[in-house]
């Protein structure tokens, strides 16, 4: 069992020793159902830290900010960043290591096992609460969640409100860490890609109708890419501006920047964006599902990523984020890669 006090003790120790620059962890937010990222710089602030199934966020995203900030500083503090990492988050760290975006020395990984739980799905709870504001939540034996609103207190089995990806998670503990709390029990859901069956069983036209309906909702707030730890480019290929401008970017380079998609939230452009996004995450997505969680219009984005995860596994026996040393999916091949689709 993960013991929060032990985590705090370690946090305090490494902060006092100056071993880390700061610690990225979770704290309570104004919303009882969702923790907020917190950045603990001083040992006296460690009491803010929490660890429970409301700790949704994949904090690895903030390592990108840190890297950018460091690049701007003249004499950067090169100490590692302490970071709370769940099983899925740790795979994100591995991908960043694999793609040489960070080095192992940049992070002090504080691994937390989700054990037999995981994180909540806010939307599922929302459905159960029918709009009432939760005032307080408690966890009962890691089996149930007890939610109190103004009017009532309800007890819901955790299984009913855990995030889908947690129910389908295969390794709920970090695969890479410097310190670790909790157990390393592997879960093995019988059918890891069962969630895709429903869409896959649709006819071509039904599939189209489904995605057309879902993707036409997109308002292109880009929260899915903003939250994704794999989306660390200074400038996204689908943006038509030239953000990564340096002093020697020529006018011509800026002028030639391709508009792969238009800014208009039209169906074609939304598809363009989401297809490129999915492609660029093939072999990189570690299924933290943050993209889907943050989507304000409830697009089931995870089903796009998950599909490619499945294809990648089945066709190429490739799984993202398990080994920082393996070559990337698209920068490697095997002689026996399937080609039955090729004429």
């Amino acid at each position, binding site marked *: 069992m993960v013991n929060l006090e032990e985590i705090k003790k370690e946090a305090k120790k490494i902060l006092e020793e100056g071993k880390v620059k700061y610690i990225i962890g979770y704290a309570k937010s104004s919303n009882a159902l969702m923790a907020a990222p917190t950045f603990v710089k001083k040992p006296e602030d460690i009491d803010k830290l929490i660890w429970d199934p409301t700790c949704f966020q994949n904090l690895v995203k903030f390592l990108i900010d840190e890297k950018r900030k460091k690049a701007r500083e003249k004499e950067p503090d090169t100490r590692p960043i302490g970071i709370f990492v769940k099983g899925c988050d740790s795979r994100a760290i591995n991908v960043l290591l694999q793609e040489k975006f960070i080095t192992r020395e940049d992070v002090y990984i504080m691994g937390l096992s989700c054990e037999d739980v995981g994180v909540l799905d806010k939307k599922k709870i929302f459905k159960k609460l029918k709009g009432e504001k939760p005032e307080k939540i408690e966890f009962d034996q890691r089996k149930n969640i007890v939610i109190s609103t103004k009017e009532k207190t309800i007890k819901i089995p955790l299984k009913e409100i855990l995030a889908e990806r947690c129910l389908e998670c295969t390794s709920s503990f970090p695969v890479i860490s410097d310190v670790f709390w909790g157990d390393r029990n592997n879960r093995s859901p019988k059918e890891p890609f069962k969630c895709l069956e429903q869409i896959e069983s649709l006819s071509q036209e039904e599939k189209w109708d489904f995605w057309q309906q879902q993707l036409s909702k997109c308002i292109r707030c880009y929260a899915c890419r903003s939250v994704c730890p794999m989306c660390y480019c200074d400038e996204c*290929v689908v943006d038509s501006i030239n953000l*990564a401008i340096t002093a020697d970017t020529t006018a011509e380079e800026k002028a030639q920047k391709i508009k792969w998609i238009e800014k208009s939230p039209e169906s074609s452009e939304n598809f363009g964006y989401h297809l490129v996004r999915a492609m660029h995450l093939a072999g990189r997505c570690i299924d933290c599902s943050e993209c889907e969680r943050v989507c304000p219009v409830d697009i089931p984005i995870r089903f796009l990523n998950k599909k490619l995860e499945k294809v990648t596994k089945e066709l190429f026996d490739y799984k993202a984020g398990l080994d920082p040393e393996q070559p*990337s999916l698209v920068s490697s091949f095997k002689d026996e890669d399937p080609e039955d689709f090729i004429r």
Partner: protein
Amino acid sequence: MKKRTGVFVCHCGINIAGTVDVKNVAEELMKHSNVAHSEDYVYMCSDPGQKLIENSIKEHSLDSVVIACCSPNLHETTFRNCAKAAGINEFQCEIANIREQCSWVHKDKLKATEKAKKITHSTVERVVKNKSLEPISIPVTRRGLVIGGGIAGIQAALDMANSGYEVVLVEKSPSIGGHMIQLSETFPTLDCSQCILTPKMVEVSKHPKIKLLTYSEVQEITGYVGNFKAKILKKPTYVDPTKCTLCDECIDVCPIVVPNEFDLGLTGRKAIYIPFPQAIPATFTLDIANCPGLLPIACGKCMDVCEPEAINYDMKPEIIEEEIGSIVLATGYDLYDKENMKEYGYGKYADVLDGLQFERLLSASGPTMGEVLRPSDHKVPKEVVFIQCVGSRDPELHCAYCSKICCMYTAKHAMLYKHHVPDGQAYIFYIDIRSGGKDYEEFVQRAKEEDGLVYLRGKVSKIFEENGKITVWGADTLAGKDIEINADMVVLATAMRPAKGAEEFAKKLKISLDKDGFLSEAHPKLKPVESVTSGLFFAGAAQAPKDIPEAVAQASGAASKAIIILSQDQLFHSPMVAKVSLNLCTGCGMCVDVCPYDSLSLKDNKAEVNEVLCEGCGTCSATCLRAAIEVKNITPVQIYEMIDASVGG
């Protein structure tokens, strides 16, 4: 400035104009805001046609041109030269293929014209964004490297050295000579292999331009055409060749006996040895793998007896670095492994020999001094069965290819056997006889007719030893019956395989291999000695099974190709190479992984292109998630515009 493009639509007589309304194509493109001039002409590639283009370029101050005509494979160079003559950069000229890919394959004039417009429009979009480029010049180190000291390597090294270039010849064994020096007599002329090869070996050793490194292995080759760097490991022989007098005293005292490679295990040798009497360099080698130890306490007998004090146990491996302009690879072949041919008793029965072993038996310098005696009991074999295609031409179980030389050497073997044992009987199992080559067919006929060899068409199913005889079960498919021969000796014409370690070596050099593991040439017909990596050439059996004359011819071919590079002050490379946008690159290294030419590397967390190595394939560009790398003049933005034009948007 806005590009001023000229569009020239060729009629190609009626080849294009018969199906495509060329005037209409020219008119349509004139609507393009970058097209400053467009016209059509009956034969653009003719002298007047080219003159017309030149004049138009000058008259309309064009800075780029699109020629809508036949395939770029035919006249791209013509028109680029023409553009150059008119004063514009050759890379500002592109070809729109409206003949092979349009007029010749369609009938409907209206639709073909529409398609021709799209193709031409798309090419205009490309050229509008083309940059003027200059070929990349590369300095040349005028020095060659030959890897492998068999007949092919020797020939290549001599040809290059005799043309006046310094050559480094690297051989992994203690002597040059390769397999040819093991042979007895050579088909079809039956001249003595050693007699014809040793003079060449001596020439190599004496040649002032050749630096011979035996008992050495190339460990690494970096760099690129004209500028390779080779790292060569020279293994210690523990004998100083300048002091060694070849007195043989050390051999006499050495207590260790191991199978002799030169005789393919038919004889033994000591741990300190000279591979064969005519070895070049003529010196002893202490075989450290078999020597009981270098410490004098362990043995040290050889050192004790060596009067000239040539033996030095403290000799260390040496890394030699050489700068090289071009390389000839002649790593040769080995025979198909015994392990693979157990059904023929190969490796199990002493009297089942392979072709090379039999060569040694026939050789005057061999274990039997040229007498044919069977290894088991040193008796003269009276019945010998020769089996062809052992391991070759057997796609299911062994090698799919034909080893090419076996028909000939088996005929030679049987013939020489008969010369040695006139009352002996030679049977040859064969699938069919391949005797293409100068005087080859005559040779085989002579063997059949004059020496009374028995050729049996069919395969051998089983070989087993019984009562001191080797029983061969086979089939004569012509006679349609099963055959059993109780032979004294069986000689297998085993398949030729690429030399051991060649695969690993090729991987190190990033040379691709064919499915059989032989070196893969750049083009099977037109570039048979070139590799895809420029500056690297192939000679001999490393590329495919070859006989001596072929190996020699190819070696001379490879040498002349290598000399072409060495003879130039500088080389030129296509400037259509990858270019990195440093501000977009995050240094993930995926492009480095996919580059087939090792032209990309990471420097300060950014990808860096070695333009000389880059062949412009663009795989890096499609792999990069950040669009941070592209190939000049076929950039994503050009493709983007071309797609627009091609859908007719």
